[in-house]
């Protein structure tokens, strides 16, 4: 089962994980990663923009890739768009599987792709205004692990 959502309002990762786990009663476990806006480095707000004709199909395609590549019963990908405050959840990836290694690897895979291979642009508001966030070489190295 694939559940892929772009949200313009705040969400609760724990509640999403519980609901996802309940929807996959037959799974032995659920792995998850929830990323949030770090309240550090003088970041006052984070804006996530996207191009929906690519972002949503891209997330759905990523979910399908994970379902094909790992032995999963289900996958959940939730991504915020819009302006977020420090501490707010940005992204949640969760995978349900009979065996824990499949679930953990699928979350690792999904996060590496969501972070650097999905159609999102981010800018940060600091005391001196908005700053675009560039691609990071670390993300590309992470991504290359799956080739």
């Amino acid at each position: 089962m694939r559940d892929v959502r772009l949200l313009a309002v705040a969400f609760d990762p724990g509640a999403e994980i519980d609901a996802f786990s309940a929807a996959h009663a037959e799974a032995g476990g659920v792995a998850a990663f929830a990323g949030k806006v770090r309240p550090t480095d003088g970041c006052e707000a984070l804006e996530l923009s996207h191009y929906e004709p690519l972002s949503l199909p891209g997330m759905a395609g990523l979910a399908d890739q994970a379902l094909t590549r790992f032995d999963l019963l289900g996958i959940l990908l939730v991504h915020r768009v819009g302006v977020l405050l420090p501490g707010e959840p940005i992204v949640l990836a969760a995978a349900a599987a009979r065996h824990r290694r499949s679930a953990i690897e699928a979350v690792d895979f999904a996060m590496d792709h969501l972070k650097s291979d999905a159609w999102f642009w981010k800018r940060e508001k600091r005391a001196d205004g908005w700053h675009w966030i560039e691609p990071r070489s670390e993300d590309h190295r992470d991504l290359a692990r799956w080739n």
Partner: protein
Amino acid sequence: MAVKLVFLGRLADLAGTHECDVADTDGVIDWTDLLAWLEVWSSADLAAAVAGEKVRIAVNGALLADKAALAAGDGDEVAFLPPVSGG
């Protein structure tokens, strides 16, 4: 009728807007027409940025493998996509 242009990320800053219409088009706009139009409408900087090798172009949500092959007609949406941000 018109071709709709959509600017993402820092290209929106450079263009001064998230989207605009290329109105009064007569038939199909190709890559050369588009760069010329952007330069007149906005700036040479925007045209150069859009032509940069890291900027991808999508027409109606489909990425172009080769930007020079662009052919957009009335009602089409052309999106300019700079490199996405890291985590």
